[in-house]
């Protein structure tokens, strides 16, 4: 087994982040966009954990705890909003949700 280097972790993190971002950018479904957002958070978390591991400090881990907490709250609120949105307008396709503009 090859010991993973920091760069490998960071590369994986960057790839995950890019996938998440492209998801947010290109998809039209609010749930999928939401998943993309989560993926970006996880990518950042991974990078922080890797830094923590390779620097032998706890700084990154502390960050991760906060990010997990905030992400949990955010998911709860965000999913509730998506559900409410669906009940109200019958769709969660963001290209159809343009009442602010029109």
């Amino acid at each position, binding site marked *: 087994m090859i010991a993973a280097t920091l760069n490998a972790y960071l590369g994986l993190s960057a790839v995950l982040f890019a996938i998440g971002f492209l998801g*947010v950018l290109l998809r039209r479904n609010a749930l999928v966009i939401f998943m993309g957002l989560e993926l970006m958070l996880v990518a950042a978390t991974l990078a922080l954990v890797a830094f923590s591991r390779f620097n032998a400090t706890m700084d990154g881990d502390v960050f991760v705890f906060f990010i997990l907490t905030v992400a949990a709250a955010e998911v709860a609120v965000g999913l509730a909003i998506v559900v409410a949105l669906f009940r109200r307008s019958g769709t969660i396709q963001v290209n159809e949700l343009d009442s602010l503009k029109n």
Partner: protein
Amino acid sequence: MTPARLAFLLLAAPLASAGATACFLRRRGRAAAALSVGVAALILAGALWLGFSGVRFEADREWLSLGGLVVSFGFKFDDLAALMLVIVALVGFCVHVFSLGYMSGDAAKARYFAGLSVFMFSMTGIVLADNLFMMFIFWELVGFSSWLLINHWHERPAACAAAKKAFITNRVGDFGFLLGILMCYWIRGTVNLTDLAVQTSSGFASYSRAIPLLLFCGAIGKSAQLPLQVWLPDAMEGPTPVSALIHAATMVAAGIYMLCRIQVLMVPQALDVIAWVGTATALYGALCAVTQRDIKKVLAYSTISQLGYMVAAFGLGSVEHRLESGEIVLVAAGVGAAMFHLTTHAFFKALLFLGSGSVIHGCSHEQDIFRMGGLARRMRFTFVTFTVAVAAIVGLPFFAGFFSKEAILALAFSRNRAIFAVLAFTAGLTAFYMLRLWRLAFLGRPRSDSAEHAHEGGFSMRAPLAVLAALAAAGGFTTLYPRALAGIVDWALEPEGAARVAVLSTSLAVLVAGGALALILYSSAAIGRAGAAAADNFLRDPLESGFPVIFGALVTLRDSFDTAYGYYIEKVQQRFAMLLNFVDLLGIGGLMRSLAGLVGLTGLQARALHVGRLNVYVFWFLAGVAVLWAFAAGIL
């Protein structure tokens, strides 16, 4: 109660009355009238007590403190103020009572009586003020109440225009007044009347011609002196009792009173100007009165003329000469004569106006004297009282005006013969136009239906006429004045020996000449001939048909000021205003508009970014991150 507190009460009561009317009694004309008349009675009682008991006091409180400038609110109640306060209270009360009858059918009675109360408040303030700033404040307040009351019938465009004209014309004079006050404060360091008197008597070296002349500007506006007299005839659009109180007896006399208050600031050169302005005004007013057909306009021009007399009297007899040390010897003869004439004029002119109000009321609002006639039989009471007033104003011996006019003529005779000649000629004109008015309105046959069916007013209109008639008949005998009030009037010069004979014979000669001319020119036969000569059977002025050149010249003279001001406003001021407007649009407006346009344009572009699609916002977000990164990396 101390006298100062009583004075404060007299000042506060009418204000409270006006406030209460404005807040609670707008729709209750009767209650508002009762309140206002009650307050006027209170002022009369207080003024009589203060005046006759001989208490004289000064009291002041700091009111405003702006850095080094301290404006105090105080009373200076000396003999001059006592006399003026009694006049104001007396005439004011008579007019209030008369208004009960005259305005009984008016829809806006509450507003009218509230206006009268505001006026009484402001006028009392002017009389009692112990410094020029306070006087100026109340000075503006009487201007405001005058505006309010001229404008009483605001549905008439003429009344609105007249009210605006009165206010704006007064503002012109008041600007000079304000500059004078500021200059007085700048040079003398105080505007308190007593302090100024102390400075002058202790030989204060500062000797300024500008201060009295600037302050006189205020009197020119308020007392309708040349060249700002144009507002007073127009002000006759207001209700007749208002004309009697404000535009004849008290407010327009405030200018004279103010001059007497600031006598200590006078210097000989300024007094010469004042005397000549007054003389010219006296002559001008009398000349204009000759051609008027409207009974109130005749009286308005007569008021201008009589105010000119007072101003001339003040100018003639206030400063004797300047000593080597720079000290100025003040002589009170001018103040005495001016205040004496002010007093008698207040009585007989208020009586004339109230009498004309009674006539107008009786003739169902007919104001043209050529459409009156024969009122002597139909309105006997008004006729008798009006005759007393006419006798007083033309200076029939032993009536009030005779003595006060003699005092002024005597002063002119001893100081300046040219002014004496003009004033004596004016006295002849006064006799002419007053007897013309009297003859046309009361004698002869009725010349219209409304004169045919004229009727006398009720008790509330007759009682004030009786009181004022008594005063106009007896007001000239200074020995009858209570000791406390006679002080000021006694300063007037008593002519002696040859001067007395000359003055007396001149005034009697012009009286007889002017009166006889009027009675001949306006005899029934002459009026009939003039009326028959006119094709449209419109009642023509015999002067107009008999002497068209003189008549035309007088009308031109009367209109010349209005024409000149109209020309100035239309051709000069309006064009200048348009130029300024153009500069404003181009410069200031242009700058502002281009700034606003810039902001608008930015907004337009910013709005284009806002498309309402989530994905697009993410793109912008990405672009933002990229820019941020570029900054952080030092690329940008």
